[in-house]
Protein backbone atom coordinates (compact mmCIF):
# COMPACT_ATOMS: atom_id res chain seq x y z
CA UNK A 1 0.00 0.00 0.00
CA UNK A 2 2.81 2.39 0.96
CA UNK A 3 4.50 1.84 -2.39
CA UNK A 4 1.40 2.66 -4.43
CA UNK A 5 0.84 5.70 -2.21
CA UNK A 6 4.35 6.79 -3.03
CA UNK A 7 3.64 6.17 -6.71
CA UNK A 8 0.53 8.29 -6.58
CA UNK A 9 2.38 11.07 -4.80
CA UNK A 10 5.14 10.99 -7.39
CA UNK A 11 2.57 11.13 -10.19
CA UNK A 12 0.80 14.01 -8.48
CA UNK A 13 4.08 15.83 -8.07
CA UNK A 14 4.95 15.35 -11.72
CA UNK A 15 1.55 16.53 -12.86
CA UNK A 16 1.74 19.65 -10.69
CA UNK A 17 5.20 20.40 -12.05
CA UNK A 18 3.95 19.83 -15.60
CA UNK A 19 1.05 22.20 -15.07
CA UNK A 20 3.31 24.87 -13.58
CA UNK A 21 5.47 24.71 -16.71
CA UNK A 22 2.38 24.89 -18.91
CA UNK A 23 1.18 27.96 -17.02
CA UNK A 24 4.48 29.76 -17.43
CA UNK A 25 4.72 28.83 -21.11
CA UNK A 26 1.20 30.09 -21.60
CA UNK A 27 2.14 33.49 -20.25
CA UNK A 28 5.28 33.50 -22.39
CA UNK A 29 3.23 32.61 -25.46
CA UNK A 30 0.79 35.43 -24.78
CA UNK A 31 3.61 37.91 -24.35
CA UNK A 32 5.40 36.76 -27.48
CA UNK A 33 2.25 36.92 -29.59
CA UNK A 34 1.36 40.39 -28.28
CA UNK A 35 4.83 41.49 -29.32
CA UNK A 36 4.36 40.14 -32.83
CA UNK A 37 0.87 41.55 -33.23
CA UNK A 38 2.13 45.00 -32.24
CA UNK A 39 4.21 44.93 -35.47
CA UNK A 40 7.40 46.64 -34.28
CA UNK A 41 8.87 46.72 -37.81
CA UNK A 42 5.81 48.18 -39.44
CA UNK A 43 5.50 45.49 -42.08
CA UNK A 44 1.81 44.71 -41.62
CA UNK A 45 0.59 46.93 -44.51
CA UNK A 46 2.63 44.83 -46.91
CA UNK A 47 0.92 41.66 -45.77
CA UNK A 48 -2.48 43.30 -45.67
CA UNK A 49 -2.09 44.29 -49.30
CA UNK A 50 -1.21 40.75 -50.33
CA UNK A 51 -4.39 39.62 -48.54
CA UNK A 52 -2.29 36.94 -46.97
CA UNK A 53 -1.89 38.12 -43.40
CA UNK A 54 -2.64 34.79 -41.72
CA UNK A 55 0.56 34.78 -39.72
CA UNK A 56 -1.05 37.63 -37.81
CA UNK A 57 -4.19 35.56 -37.31
CA UNK A 58 -1.99 32.80 -35.88
CA UNK A 59 -0.45 35.29 -33.46
CA UNK A 60 -3.89 36.50 -32.37
CA UNK A 61 -4.97 32.93 -31.64
CA UNK A 62 -1.70 32.50 -29.74
CA UNK A 63 -2.56 35.38 -27.41
CA UNK A 64 -5.82 33.77 -26.33
CA UNK A 65 -4.47 30.25 -26.21
CA UNK A 66 -1.60 31.35 -23.99
CA UNK A 67 -3.97 32.91 -21.54
CA UNK A 68 -6.24 29.85 -21.61
CA UNK A 69 -3.27 27.58 -20.92
CA UNK A 70 -2.36 29.67 -17.91
CA UNK A 71 -5.90 29.53 -16.49
CA UNK A 72 -6.28 25.82 -17.18
CA UNK A 73 -2.95 24.98 -15.59
CA UNK A 74 -4.17 26.52 -12.34
CA UNK A 75 -7.35 24.45 -12.61
CA UNK A 76 -5.22 21.38 -13.25
CA UNK A 77 -3.02 21.97 -10.22
CA UNK A 78 -6.05 22.34 -7.98
CA UNK A 79 -7.68 19.24 -9.48
CA UNK A 80 -4.60 17.08 -9.05
CA UNK A 81 -3.95 18.14 -5.50
CA UNK A 82 -7.57 17.62 -4.49
CA UNK A 83 -7.85 14.46 -6.63
CA UNK A 84 -11.27 15.66 -7.73
CA UNK A 85 -12.59 13.69 -10.69
CA UNK A 86 -15.00 16.35 -11.91
CA UNK A 87 -12.41 19.08 -11.89
CA UNK A 88 -9.95 16.90 -13.70
CA UNK A 89 -12.51 15.87 -16.33
CA UNK A 90 -13.34 19.53 -16.99
CA UNK A 91 -9.62 20.25 -17.16
CA UNK A 92 -8.99 17.49 -19.70
CA UNK A 93 -11.86 18.49 -21.97
CA UNK A 94 -10.99 22.18 -21.96
CA UNK A 95 -7.33 21.38 -22.51
CA UNK A 96 -8.21 19.29 -25.54
CA UNK A 97 -10.10 22.24 -27.03
CA UNK A 98 -7.21 24.60 -26.30
CA UNK A 99 -4.84 22.05 -27.79
CA UNK A 100 -6.84 22.05 -31.01
CA UNK A 101 -6.73 25.86 -31.26
CA UNK A 102 -3.02 26.01 -30.63
CA UNK A 103 -2.44 23.32 -33.21
CA UNK A 104 -4.39 25.42 -35.72
CA UNK A 105 -2.25 28.44 -34.87
CA UNK A 106 1.04 26.58 -35.35
CA UNK A 107 0.06 25.02 -38.63
CA UNK A 108 -1.31 28.32 -39.97
CA UNK A 109 1.85 30.22 -39.09
CA UNK A 110 4.11 27.58 -40.64
CA UNK A 111 2.04 27.19 -43.78
CA UNK A 112 1.52 30.85 -44.54
CA UNK A 113 5.15 31.67 -44.02
CA UNK A 114 5.79 29.63 -47.16
CA UNK A 115 3.76 32.03 -49.25
CA UNK A 116 5.93 35.04 -48.44
CA UNK A 117 8.38 34.80 -51.34
CA UNK A 118 10.45 37.59 -52.90
CA UNK A 119 8.31 37.48 -56.04
CA UNK A 120 5.18 38.19 -54.02
CA UNK A 121 6.60 41.37 -52.57
CA UNK A 122 8.12 42.35 -55.91
CA UNK A 123 4.82 42.08 -57.72
CA UNK A 124 3.04 43.99 -54.99
CA UNK A 125 5.65 46.74 -54.93
CA UNK A 126 5.54 47.20 -58.70
CA UNK A 127 1.76 47.21 -58.85
CA UNK A 128 1.01 49.34 -55.82
CA UNK A 129 3.90 51.65 -54.99
CA UNK A 130 2.84 55.19 -55.84
CA UNK A 131 -0.22 54.02 -57.71
CA UNK A 132 -2.38 57.06 -58.34
CA UNK A 133 -5.63 55.72 -59.74
CA UNK A 134 -7.29 53.63 -57.09
CA UNK A 135 -10.65 51.99 -57.68
CA UNK A 136 -12.18 52.08 -54.21
CA UNK A 137 -11.41 52.94 -50.61
CA UNK A 138 -9.96 49.53 -49.84
CA UNK A 139 -7.58 49.80 -52.79
CA UNK A 140 -6.62 53.31 -51.72
CA UNK A 141 -5.96 52.20 -48.15
CA UNK A 142 -3.78 49.31 -49.25
CA UNK A 143 -1.90 51.41 -51.78
CA UNK A 144 -1.15 54.11 -49.24
CA UNK A 145 0.00 51.47 -46.76
CA UNK A 146 2.34 49.89 -49.27
CA UNK A 147 3.77 53.23 -50.41
CA UNK A 148 4.42 54.50 -46.89
CA UNK A 149 5.91 51.20 -45.79
CA UNK A 150 8.28 51.00 -48.75
CA UNK A 151 9.38 54.61 -48.30
CA UNK A 152 10.13 53.94 -44.66
CA UNK A 153 11.88 50.65 -45.44
CA UNK A 154 14.12 52.18 -48.10
CA UNK A 155 15.00 55.08 -45.87
CA UNK A 156 15.72 53.14 -42.69
CA UNK A 157 17.49 50.15 -44.19
CA UNK A 158 19.31 51.94 -47.01
CA UNK A 159 18.01 49.52 -49.57
CA UNK A 160 16.14 49.69 -52.86
CA UNK A 161 13.62 47.35 -54.44
CA UNK A 162 13.19 43.73 -53.41
CA UNK A 163 16.29 42.21 -54.96
CA UNK A 164 17.98 45.49 -55.88
CA UNK A 165 17.42 48.75 -57.78
CA UNK A 166 17.41 46.79 -61.04
CA UNK A 167 13.84 45.70 -60.16
CA UNK A 168 12.71 49.20 -61.09
CA UNK A 169 14.54 48.99 -64.40
CA UNK A 170 13.57 45.49 -65.40
CA UNK A 171 9.83 45.79 -64.89
CA UNK A 172 7.25 48.37 -65.74
CA UNK A 173 5.29 49.58 -62.72
CA UNK A 174 2.70 52.03 -61.41
CA UNK A 175 5.63 54.23 -60.40
CA UNK A 176 7.06 54.14 -63.94
CA UNK A 177 3.75 55.28 -65.43
CA UNK A 178 3.91 58.56 -63.50
CA UNK A 179 7.67 59.13 -63.26
CA UNK A 180 9.82 59.14 -66.37
CA UNK A 181 12.82 56.89 -66.54
CA UNK A 182 15.14 59.76 -67.41
CA UNK A 183 14.38 61.65 -64.20
CA UNK A 184 13.53 58.74 -61.93
CA UNK A 185 15.23 55.48 -62.86
CA UNK A 186 14.19 54.49 -59.33
CA UNK A 187 12.39 56.25 -56.48
CA UNK A 188 14.21 59.08 -54.76
CA UNK A 189 14.44 57.12 -51.51
CA UNK A 190 16.80 54.72 -53.28
CA UNK A 191 19.38 57.51 -53.44
CA UNK A 192 21.74 58.17 -50.58
CA UNK A 193 20.07 61.07 -48.83
CA UNK A 194 21.65 63.81 -46.77
CA UNK A 195 20.41 65.07 -43.42
CA UNK A 196 17.69 67.18 -45.02
CA UNK A 197 16.27 64.31 -47.02
CA UNK A 198 17.48 65.30 -50.48
CA UNK A 199 19.87 63.20 -52.57
CA UNK A 200 23.56 63.83 -51.99
CA UNK A 201 24.14 63.87 -55.76
CA UNK A 202 21.18 63.42 -58.03
CA UNK A 203 23.16 62.68 -61.21
CA UNK A 204 25.24 60.14 -59.38
CA UNK A 205 22.09 58.47 -58.14
CA UNK A 206 20.48 58.41 -61.59
CA UNK A 207 23.58 56.98 -63.24
CA UNK A 208 24.10 54.39 -60.53
CA UNK A 209 27.48 55.63 -59.33
CA UNK A 210 28.50 53.48 -56.35
CA UNK A 211 28.10 55.38 -53.12
CA UNK A 212 25.26 57.60 -54.30
CA UNK A 213 22.49 55.05 -54.45
CA UNK A 214 21.44 52.05 -52.38
CA UNK A 215 22.49 48.99 -54.29
CA UNK A 216 21.18 46.23 -52.06
CA UNK A 217 17.66 44.85 -51.95
CA UNK A 218 15.15 45.18 -49.13
CA UNK A 219 14.10 41.55 -49.06
CA UNK A 220 16.30 40.72 -46.08
CA UNK A 221 14.80 43.56 -44.10
CA UNK A 222 11.32 42.23 -44.84
CA UNK A 223 11.84 38.50 -44.53
CA UNK A 224 13.93 38.66 -41.35
CA UNK A 225 11.17 39.98 -39.06
CA UNK A 226 8.52 37.91 -40.81
CA UNK A 227 10.49 34.73 -40.39
CA UNK A 228 11.04 35.49 -36.73
CA UNK A 229 7.33 36.10 -36.34
CA UNK A 230 6.16 32.97 -38.10
CA UNK A 231 8.73 30.61 -36.66
CA UNK A 232 8.37 32.09 -33.19
CA UNK A 233 4.66 31.39 -33.18
CA UNK A 234 4.91 28.01 -34.91
CA UNK A 235 7.85 26.41 -33.14
CA UNK A 236 7.23 27.74 -29.66
CA UNK A 237 3.63 26.62 -29.95
CA UNK A 238 4.83 23.24 -31.14
CA UNK A 239 7.13 22.88 -28.14
CA UNK A 240 4.32 23.80 -25.73
CA UNK A 241 2.07 21.26 -27.40
CA UNK A 242 4.60 18.46 -27.07
CA UNK A 243 4.95 19.15 -23.35
CA UNK A 244 1.18 19.51 -22.92
CA UNK A 245 0.69 16.17 -24.66
CA UNK A 246 2.74 14.40 -22.00
CA UNK A 247 1.03 16.22 -19.14
CA UNK A 248 -2.41 15.48 -20.57
CA UNK A 249 -1.67 11.79 -20.99
CA UNK A 250 -0.44 11.66 -17.40
CA UNK A 251 -3.56 13.47 -16.21
CA UNK A 252 -5.83 11.10 -18.10
CA UNK A 253 -4.05 8.13 -16.54
CA UNK A 254 -4.30 9.72 -13.08
CA UNK A 255 -7.96 10.51 -13.59
CA UNK A 256 -8.77 6.97 -14.59
CA UNK A 257 -7.08 5.64 -11.46
CA UNK A 258 -8.82 7.92 -8.96
CA UNK A 259 -11.53 6.10 -7.07
CA UNK A 260 -14.73 7.76 -6.14
Amino acid at each position, binding site marked *: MAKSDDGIHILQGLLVFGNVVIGMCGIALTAECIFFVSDPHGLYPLLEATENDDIYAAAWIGIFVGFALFALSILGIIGVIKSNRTLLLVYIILMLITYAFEMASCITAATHR*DFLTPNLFLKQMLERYNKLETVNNNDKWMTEGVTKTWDKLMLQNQCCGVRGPSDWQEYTSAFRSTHS*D*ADFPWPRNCCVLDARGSP*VNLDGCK*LGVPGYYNSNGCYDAISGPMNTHAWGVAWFGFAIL*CWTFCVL*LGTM*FYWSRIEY
Partner: protein
Amino acid sequence: MCSCWLVLAFCCLGQLCADQSLKPQLAASQLATNNPTLTTVALEKPFCMFDSSLSPNKSYIIYLYAMKESASAISSLVTDNSSKPLDSTFQQTSGGQLGPYKAALFKVPNCASPPKLADVGDVNKVSDVLKQYLFRVGDDGTCLYDPNFLGVCNPPLAPDTTYRFKYVLLDTTEGIMKGQTLWSDPIKTRRVKLPLKIDTWPGRRSGDMIVITSILSVLVFLLLAGFLASVSSAVMGSDNSSAKTRCMSQTIQQSEPRPQLSSE
Protein backbone atom coordinates in the same frame (compact mmCIF):
# COMPACT_ATOMS: atom_id res chain seq x y z
CA MET B 1 42.41 49.68 -55.62
CA CYS B 2 39.59 49.85 -58.05
CA SER B 3 39.99 53.60 -58.42
CA CYS B 4 43.73 53.25 -59.18
CA TRP B 5 42.88 50.70 -61.82
CA LEU B 6 40.38 53.12 -63.34
CA VAL B 7 42.92 55.96 -63.50
CA LEU B 8 45.50 53.65 -65.08
CA ALA B 9 43.02 52.40 -67.65
CA PHE B 10 42.14 55.97 -68.43
CA CYS B 11 45.75 56.95 -69.07
CA CYS B 12 46.29 53.93 -71.28
CA LEU B 13 43.17 54.76 -73.20
CA GLY B 14 44.49 58.24 -73.82
CA GLN B 15 47.80 56.97 -75.15
CA LEU B 16 46.47 54.21 -77.30
CA CYS B 17 43.61 56.23 -78.74
CA ALA B 18 45.45 57.25 -81.84
CA ASP B 19 45.96 53.65 -82.83
CA GLN B 20 42.41 52.38 -82.36
CA SER B 21 39.45 52.91 -84.63
CA LEU B 22 37.67 55.75 -82.85
CA LYS B 23 34.11 55.17 -81.74
CA PRO B 24 31.99 56.62 -78.96
CA GLN B 25 32.06 54.25 -75.98
CA LEU B 26 29.68 53.60 -73.16
CA ALA B 27 30.73 55.17 -69.86
CA ALA B 28 32.81 52.88 -67.65
CA SER B 29 30.49 50.29 -66.15
CA GLN B 30 32.18 50.47 -62.74
CA LEU B 31 31.24 54.12 -62.61
CA ALA B 32 27.81 54.20 -64.24
CA THR B 33 26.25 50.92 -63.24
CA ASN B 34 22.81 51.86 -64.49
CA ASN B 35 23.66 52.10 -68.18
CA PRO B 36 21.95 51.90 -70.62
CA THR B 37 18.60 52.40 -68.97
CA LEU B 38 15.14 52.28 -70.47
CA THR B 39 15.40 55.66 -72.16
CA THR B 40 18.94 56.96 -71.62
CA VAL B 41 22.49 56.05 -72.59
CA ALA B 42 25.55 57.50 -70.87
CA LEU B 43 28.50 57.87 -73.26
CA GLU B 44 32.09 58.67 -72.49
CA LYS B 45 33.14 62.03 -73.91
CA PRO B 46 35.66 61.84 -76.77
CA PHE B 47 38.91 62.22 -74.86
CA CYS B 48 41.96 62.55 -77.10
CA MET B 49 40.06 61.39 -80.16
CA PHE B 50 40.48 64.58 -82.19
CA ASP B 51 43.88 65.73 -80.99
CA SER B 52 45.50 65.29 -84.38
CA SER B 53 42.92 67.60 -85.97
CA LEU B 54 43.17 70.44 -83.46
CA SER B 55 45.21 73.52 -84.26
CA PRO B 56 46.12 75.84 -81.38
CA ASN B 57 44.64 79.16 -82.47
CA LYS B 58 41.17 78.07 -83.38
CA SER B 59 38.12 77.25 -81.28
CA TYR B 60 36.28 74.01 -81.65
CA ILE B 61 33.16 72.36 -80.32
CA ILE B 62 31.93 68.80 -80.50
CA TYR B 63 28.52 67.69 -81.72
CA LEU B 64 26.96 64.40 -80.73
CA TYR B 65 24.64 62.75 -83.26
CA ALA B 66 22.29 59.92 -82.46
CA MET B 67 20.22 57.71 -84.73
CA LYS B 68 18.33 54.46 -84.57
CA GLU B 69 20.19 51.61 -86.16
CA SER B 70 17.33 51.08 -88.60
CA ALA B 71 17.94 54.57 -89.96
CA SER B 72 21.34 53.64 -91.32
CA ALA B 73 19.55 52.17 -94.31
CA ILE B 74 17.86 55.52 -95.00
CA SER B 75 20.60 57.99 -94.25
CA SER B 76 23.57 58.13 -91.96
CA LEU B 77 25.09 61.38 -93.15
CA VAL B 78 25.84 64.03 -90.58
CA THR B 79 27.08 66.72 -92.95
CA ASP B 80 25.74 68.34 -96.05
CA ASN B 81 27.64 68.78 -99.35
CA SER B 82 29.80 71.63 -98.06
CA SER B 83 31.00 69.77 -94.96
CA LYS B 84 28.69 71.73 -92.70
CA PRO B 85 27.15 69.56 -89.97
CA LEU B 86 23.42 68.92 -90.19
CA ASP B 87 21.13 70.78 -87.85
CA SER B 88 18.52 68.04 -87.60
CA THR B 89 16.45 67.77 -84.42
CA PHE B 90 14.74 64.94 -82.65
CA GLN B 91 11.31 65.96 -83.97
CA GLN B 92 12.51 66.34 -87.56
CA THR B 93 13.96 62.85 -87.68
CA SER B 94 11.14 61.24 -85.64
CA GLY B 95 13.48 60.42 -82.82
CA GLY B 96 16.32 59.23 -85.04
CA GLN B 97 14.21 57.00 -87.23
CA LEU B 98 14.78 58.86 -90.49
CA GLY B 99 18.38 59.79 -89.90
CA PRO B 100 20.78 61.17 -87.32
CA TYR B 101 19.74 64.07 -85.10
CA LYS B 102 21.93 66.40 -83.11
CA ALA B 103 21.62 65.47 -79.45
CA ALA B 104 24.24 67.68 -77.81
CA LEU B 105 27.08 70.08 -78.20
CA PHE B 106 29.89 70.63 -75.77
CA LYS B 107 33.44 71.86 -75.75
CA VAL B 108 36.36 69.60 -76.52
CA PRO B 109 37.31 67.57 -73.48
CA ASN B 110 40.72 68.25 -72.04
CA CYS B 111 43.04 65.49 -73.18
CA ALA B 112 46.02 66.64 -71.18
CA SER B 113 44.27 66.48 -67.80
CA PRO B 114 41.30 64.12 -67.90
CA PRO B 115 39.07 63.99 -64.81
CA LYS B 116 40.25 61.56 -62.18
CA LEU B 117 37.56 58.94 -61.75
CA ALA B 118 38.76 58.24 -58.23
CA ASP B 119 37.42 61.67 -57.25
CA VAL B 120 33.91 60.33 -57.62
CA GLY B 121 34.06 59.33 -53.98
CA ASP B 122 34.38 62.96 -52.93
CA VAL B 123 30.96 64.55 -52.57
CA ASN B 124 32.19 68.00 -53.59
CA LYS B 125 33.95 66.89 -56.74
CA VAL B 126 31.57 64.25 -58.06
CA SER B 127 29.37 66.64 -60.07
CA ASP B 128 32.35 68.06 -61.91
CA VAL B 129 33.87 64.67 -62.58
CA LEU B 130 30.63 63.30 -63.98
CA LYS B 131 30.06 66.38 -66.11
CA GLN B 132 33.56 66.28 -67.57
CA TYR B 133 33.73 62.54 -68.09
CA LEU B 134 30.41 61.51 -69.56
CA PHE B 135 27.30 62.71 -71.32
CA ARG B 136 23.86 61.25 -70.77
CA VAL B 137 21.80 60.98 -73.94
CA GLY B 138 18.09 61.23 -73.19
CA ASP B 139 18.48 63.23 -70.01
CA ASP B 140 16.02 66.03 -70.67
CA GLY B 141 12.40 65.02 -70.38
CA THR B 142 10.83 68.47 -70.74
CA CYS B 143 12.53 70.18 -73.70
CA LEU B 144 10.31 68.44 -76.24
CA TYR B 145 7.16 69.98 -74.81
CA ASP B 146 8.56 73.38 -73.95
CA PRO B 147 7.85 75.87 -76.77
CA ASN B 148 10.37 78.35 -75.34
CA PHE B 149 13.28 75.95 -75.41
CA LEU B 150 16.02 77.22 -77.69
CA GLY B 151 18.98 74.92 -77.11
CA VAL B 152 19.74 71.47 -78.47
CA CYS B 153 16.99 69.17 -77.27
CA ASN B 154 18.07 65.81 -75.85
CA PRO B 155 14.81 63.97 -75.21
CA PRO B 156 14.53 60.45 -73.80
CA LEU B 157 15.17 57.62 -76.21
CA ALA B 158 12.77 54.81 -77.02
CA PRO B 159 12.94 51.62 -74.96
CA ASP B 160 14.08 48.34 -76.48
CA THR B 161 15.65 50.07 -79.49
CA THR B 162 19.17 49.97 -80.88
CA TYR B 163 20.89 53.30 -81.32
CA ARG B 164 24.24 54.40 -82.74
CA PHE B 165 26.14 57.55 -81.89
CA LYS B 166 28.82 59.67 -83.49
CA TYR B 167 30.97 62.57 -82.38
CA VAL B 168 31.80 65.35 -84.86
CA LEU B 169 34.46 68.03 -84.39
CA LEU B 170 33.44 71.45 -85.64
CA ASP B 171 35.52 74.53 -86.21
CA THR B 172 33.35 77.35 -84.87
CA THR B 173 34.83 80.17 -86.98
CA GLU B 174 34.52 78.43 -90.33
CA GLY B 175 31.54 76.34 -89.37
CA ILE B 176 32.79 73.21 -91.10
CA MET B 177 33.50 69.74 -89.84
CA LYS B 178 37.11 69.01 -89.06
CA GLY B 179 36.90 65.43 -87.86
CA GLN B 180 34.46 62.74 -86.93
CA THR B 181 34.52 59.40 -85.19
CA LEU B 182 33.04 56.26 -86.62
CA TRP B 183 29.49 55.32 -85.70
CA SER B 184 29.52 53.56 -82.36
CA ASP B 185 28.69 49.90 -81.92
CA PRO B 186 24.93 49.35 -81.68
CA ILE B 187 23.73 50.11 -78.17
CA LYS B 188 20.35 48.82 -77.16
CA THR B 189 18.16 50.45 -74.52
CA ARG B 190 16.53 48.23 -71.94
CA ARG B 191 13.38 46.31 -72.37
CA VAL B 192 10.80 45.95 -69.61
CA LYS B 193 8.72 43.03 -68.47
CA LEU B 194 5.20 43.24 -67.13
CA PRO B 195 4.70 42.65 -63.42
CA LEU B 196 1.66 40.53 -64.27
CA LYS B 197 4.01 37.88 -65.51
CA ILE B 198 5.77 37.51 -62.16
CA ASP B 199 5.08 34.06 -60.78
CA THR B 200 4.19 34.22 -57.10
CA TRP B 201 3.60 30.51 -56.55
CA PRO B 202 5.72 29.48 -53.57
CA GLY B 203 6.64 26.08 -54.91
CA ARG B 204 7.03 23.16 -52.56
CA ARG B 205 6.10 23.26 -48.94
CA SER B 206 8.97 23.86 -46.57
CA GLY B 207 10.23 21.12 -44.28
CA ASP B 208 9.16 23.07 -41.17
CA MET B 209 5.54 23.00 -42.14
CA ILE B 210 5.52 19.30 -42.97
CA VAL B 211 7.17 18.38 -39.65
CA ILE B 212 4.84 20.53 -37.57
CA THR B 213 1.68 19.35 -39.30
CA SER B 214 2.48 15.67 -39.28
CA ILE B 215 3.75 15.47 -35.70
CA LEU B 216 0.89 17.54 -34.30
CA SER B 217 -1.68 15.43 -36.13
CA VAL B 218 -0.21 12.27 -34.64
CA LEU B 219 -0.15 13.79 -31.14
CA VAL B 220 -3.77 14.89 -31.37
CA PHE B 221 -4.79 11.42 -32.50
CA LEU B 222 -2.93 9.85 -29.57
CA LEU B 223 -4.53 12.28 -27.14
CA LEU B 224 -8.01 11.51 -28.35
CA ALA B 225 -7.29 7.79 -28.24
CA GLY B 226 -5.93 8.16 -24.71
CA PHE B 227 -8.99 10.15 -23.67
CA LEU B 228 -11.36 7.53 -25.02
CA ALA B 229 -9.34 4.77 -23.39
CA SER B 230 -9.37 6.44 -19.99
CA VAL B 231 -13.09 7.26 -20.18
CA SER B 232 -13.97 3.70 -21.20
CA SER B 233 -11.70 2.21 -18.55
CA ALA B 234 -13.28 4.50 -15.98
CA VAL B 235 -16.77 3.43 -17.06
CA MET B 236 -15.87 -0.27 -17.04
CA GLY B 237 -14.02 0.15 -13.79
CA SER B 238 -17.09 1.64 -12.16
CA ASP B 239 -19.18 -1.34 -13.44
CA ASN B 240 -16.64 -3.79 -11.98
CA SER B 241 -16.39 -1.96 -8.71
CA SER B 242 -20.18 -1.87 -8.30
CA ALA B 243 -20.26 -5.65 -9.01
CA LYS B 244 -17.43 -6.18 -6.52
CA THR B 245 -19.17 -4.21 -3.79
CA ARG B 246 -22.29 -6.33 -4.29
CA CYS B 247 -20.20 -9.53 -4.05
CA MET B 248 -18.35 -8.22 -1.04
CA SER B 249 -21.55 -7.22 0.79
CA GLN B 250 -22.96 -10.68 0.08
CA THR B 251 -19.89 -12.46 1.42
CA ILE B 252 -19.89 -10.23 4.52
CA GLN B 253 -23.52 -11.12 5.14
CA GLN B 254 -22.73 -14.79 4.69
CA SER B 255 -19.69 -14.71 6.93
CA GLU B 256 -21.39 -12.84 9.77
CA PRO B 257 -23.83 -15.60 11.06
CA ARG B 258 -20.97 -18.21 11.21
CA PRO B 259 -19.39 -16.99 14.42
CA GLN B 260 -22.82 -17.26 15.99
CA LEU B 261 -23.20 -20.89 14.88
CA SER B 262 -19.71 -21.90 16.02
CA SER B 263 -20.12 -20.32 19.48
CA GLU B 264 -23.23 -22.45 20.12
